[in-house]
């Protein structure tokens, strides 16, 4: 996705949902590639990712 205008250019931060975390860590989940690609993209673009205490508790 890098180099392509995705709308992320104006985003100053994202709040991660529990579902995202589970799918990022669960390699056999059908949505794992999506979560991993977004994770990489957000890191590459330097977009801060926030995790709420509610998500941590879940």
């Amino acid at each position: 996705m890098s180099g392509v205008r995705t709308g992320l250019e104006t985003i100053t931060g994202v709040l991660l949902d529990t579902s995202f975390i589970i799918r990022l860590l669960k390699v056999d989940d059908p949505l794992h590639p999506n979560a991993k690609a977004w994770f990489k993209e957000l890191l590459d673009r330097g977009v801060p990712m926030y995790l709420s205490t509610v998500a941590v508790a879940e």
Partner: protein
Amino acid sequence: MERTATFEVVVSGTKGGQPMMPEDFDIKALRELLTEVEVLLFPGSSSRDRPVISYEVQPGSVRNLFRTGVQAVAQTSAVLALVASSGTIDMLEPRTARALEAMQRWAQEGDVAFALRTSLPGSPELIIDRTTHYLRTEAVSVETELYLYGRVVDAGGKERSNIHLQVEGQGIHVIDASKEFLEGLDKNILYHRMGVRAMGRQNLQTGEIEKNSLKLLELIDYDEHFEEAYLKRLQAKARGWLKDTDPDQYLNDVRGTYGS
């Protein structure tokens, strides 16, 4: 309108039964006063970054006149008005509150009185003397644990060892760290981006962290670049409890009807 204005601190008291005069005002007291005034005028700046504050002393008892930019004086005037009308300093930012607390303690212990005012039209006057109580209430700040992420711009110190962490949008946090800890680091952290787990005091009213109250608990090697090996390690750790988990079912079970 003039571009500069005056912040005035009148110190009243007696010396040998006579009203205090400028010649009775010792340089030690003056040095303390200058420190507090600098904070009151420029609470968010270091001495290097702020505009010039010029100083003049006049009789009556001891009139200390500080001239600087009109905006800083106007902000200080607003703080004086807020404190004078509310009778408390609990809502102030920690540095400003500490400066007024120092003057309050000075008034109580040294039996002097302070009158703080500015040269701006309609300026309020804040009196601090033995009868006032401009001290923060105990419950205004709490001990808290927090994570900070930023760039280490200094580490070490001969007397008080610490690291200085530049956090985007927040300025520099000074975090106490033992010499043994810094000595034992196996890599140079200077100018590296790091995460810090620290204990510190947080103002309950403003939410602000008291920057000089921080004590280091843990230094986190924080690399904001994507690292496949690191992700794989996390996935391996999570495999045990995720392998038989259906994410949708799990979240439905945890959340129940919440959000449905």
